[in-house]
């Protein structure tokens, strides 16, 4: 605590953050999982991020002091604030918000000043996650990102705009839309609209960028919104693509991936010939690449907090060396680019009154990220319990959503920041105790299966009104125990029915008011929000 804003910022300069001078002959700029955050935000990194199997206790499953020790980060430093969770409120008051695409533009421009033909690559989850993005069906993000002139992107939440809208945008997109694993579902052939890879000549080097979209799109998100497509990891096809681009003369092979970091680590051990994987989806931000064999894996965080710069020395068709910098986008230190700032303002102006309307205040730090309940999710679950008159609430374990500091107003924009999806219906239904157990076991296996290829890269479903124990080391069916109805303290009975409210069901035809309305009504009634520590989930087996 005790951080003076001025003192904190005096230690930082724009030049120090971005760094200068280039190395080698090829530069990659990686930006991923923006989740439609055009303007600076607070985002608290996870406290709990458990790795299982071979990934127990290793990157990216280190948090807090363990993370700082691993990378030699001083307590209280800018990197402490940007990359770890503890002392978040105090550090946030000192260091300010992070991100903002106008600041990102300044970083990109500075890198391009060194290396004009640097490749700018967007890892996806770009066209979802805000009020303006939801109300323009992604157009605000397309307009602003296009002005940054990226070279390619790949996809995940974009598909929840529905295939028709995705087709419309991608057909007019002024940069490559890549996904070697995006297939036509009917004939099981590569989808025509999405190329598997694109070649770029930069620094006299032939660079092939292969796209890898999120493999589990129709499972994690509503498949009925994009029934024409099938995904999957398809690492055999990835190998074919690597071999194909090498045969065509690629001297550097880059995979722009939305697999998630554990999946990328496994894929790097199976597919040979990829030099660099630019990893997205699991929102990990790492100060150094992870190396698997001859492949380096770069993880660039989320919500615009970071931009990765990778300089590579490519000679004789081989990557001889690299220099990497995870650039934290401190929004009070890095000056906004005026053109992009004006363009962002133009996207937001039509919605200004709706965006800025104050719904209530928060006395507590509101955040989402972490394997189990976050305080934002507790607010959402409470809203579901009271507004939908339910015994139990379920809220999806998505990893996106900015944080709010104690004392901040909660605006409508803030509520959309943690709820803006295209299937927002807050359902109310009855579920048997045994089915609730199946749900928890099913989701837990998506996170804690020791084989990364069975993981979908989300966090545990959040529960309200329901407590449980979880042993993450057990197989599916044996992880969850001691399920308790918190209102009475009674054990959940397998054959009894409970009234359950939730949102983000992947089932077609789900009915209910949009979740942001439910949350808004709840916060209006409370006036100010205070979230007590959540002790409803007991974790073991770590």
């Amino acid at each position, binding site marked *: 605590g005790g951080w003076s804003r001025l003192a904190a910022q005096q230690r930082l300069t724009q030049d120090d953050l971005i760094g200068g001078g280039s190395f080698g002959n090829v530069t990659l700029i990686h930006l991923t*999982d923006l989740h439609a955050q055009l303007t600076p935000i607070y985002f608290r990194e996870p406290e709990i991020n458990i790795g299982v199997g071979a990934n127990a206790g290793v990157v990216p499953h280190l948090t807090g002091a363990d993370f700082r020790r691993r990378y030699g980060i001083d307590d209280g430093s800018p990197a402490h604030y940007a990359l770890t969770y503890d002392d978040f409120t105090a550090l946030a008051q000192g260091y300010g918000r992070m991100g903002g695409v106008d600041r990102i533009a300044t970083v990109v421009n500075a890198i391009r000043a060194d290396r004009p033909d640097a490749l700018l690559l967007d890892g996806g989850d770009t066209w979802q996650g805000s009020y303006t993005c939801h109300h323009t069906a992604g157009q605000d993000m397309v307009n602003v990102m296009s002005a940054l002139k990226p070279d390619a992107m790949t996809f995940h939440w974009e598909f929840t705009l529905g295939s028709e809208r995705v087709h419309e945008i991608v057909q007019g997109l002024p940069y490559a839309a890549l996904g070697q694993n995006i297939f036509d579902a009917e004939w099981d052939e590569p989808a025509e609209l999405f190329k598997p890879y694109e070649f770029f000549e930069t620094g006299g080097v032939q660079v092939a960028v292969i796209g890898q979209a999120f493999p589990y799109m129709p499972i994690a998100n*509503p498949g009925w919104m994009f029934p024409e497509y099938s995904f999957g990891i398809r690492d055999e096809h990835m190998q074919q693509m690597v071999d194909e681009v090498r045969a065509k003369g690629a001297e550097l092979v880059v995979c722009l991936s939305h697999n998630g970091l554990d999946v990328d680590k496994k894929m790097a051990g199976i597919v040979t010939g990829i030099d660099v994987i630019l990893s997205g989806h699991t929102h990990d931000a790492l100060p150094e690449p992870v190396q698997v064999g001859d492949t380096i894996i770069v993880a660039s965080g989320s919500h615009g907090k970071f931009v990765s710069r990778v300089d590579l020395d490519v000679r004789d068709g081989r990557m001889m060396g690299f220099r990497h910098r995870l650039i934290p986008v401190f929004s009070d230190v890095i000056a906004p680019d005026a053109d992009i700032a004006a363009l962002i303002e133009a996207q937001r102006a039509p919605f200004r009154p709706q965006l800025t309307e104050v719904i209530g205040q928060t006395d507590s730090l509101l955040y989402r990220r972490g394997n189990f309940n976050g305080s934002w999710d507790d607010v959402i679950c409470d809203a579901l319990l009271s507004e939908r008159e339910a015994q139990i609430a379920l809220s999806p374990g998505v*990893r996106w959503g900015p944080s709010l500091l104690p004392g901040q107003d909660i605006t409508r924009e803030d509520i959309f920041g943690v709820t803006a999806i295209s299937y927002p219906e807050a359902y109310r239904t009855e579920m048997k105790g045994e089915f609730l157990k199946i749900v928890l076991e*099913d989701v837990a296996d998506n996170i804690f299966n020791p084989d990364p290829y069975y993981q979908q890269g*989300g966090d545990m479903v959040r529960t309200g009104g329901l407590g449980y124990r979880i042993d993450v080391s057990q197989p599916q069916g044996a992880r969850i125990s001691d399920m308790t109805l918190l209102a009475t303290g009674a054990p959940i009975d397998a054959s009894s029915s409970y009234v359950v409210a939730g949102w983000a069901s992947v089932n077609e035809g789900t009915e209910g008011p949009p979740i942001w309305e439910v949350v808004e009504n709840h916060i209006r009634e409370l006036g100010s929000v205070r979230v007590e520590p959540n002790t409803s989930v007991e974790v073991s087996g770590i």
Partner: protein
Amino acid sequence: GLGAAAMMVLPLRANASATDDLIAEFTGGADLADTGITLTAPEIAENGNTVPIEVSAPGASEIVVFATGNPVPPVAQFSFGPLAGSQTAATRIRLAKTQDVVAVARMADGSFARATQLVKVTIGGCGG
């Protein structure tokens, strides 16, 4: 999704042994090699109603496929004729829940080989 989807909860073991009986019927009780046949299926099904699988057994005359966790395990029997370009075939199958899919090939010399792949059928619904 987290909606009230109906899940089939059947004892896996009962049907696994049903599959063993069906395999024994096909092979006449002969030994099963664990090489010579490949079964390709996704780790996680995008949709349990239509799971892509591919079987391949160079030199096989027939390949049978079983879904060990379905109420009725048999799925298909592929017989390859003289103009088959390879002893490979792909189709899409229904899986009632997470289970092993098993393929057994009858080779030209009368021997048999088996391949097994676990396919997870999940409720789904969360993401990063």
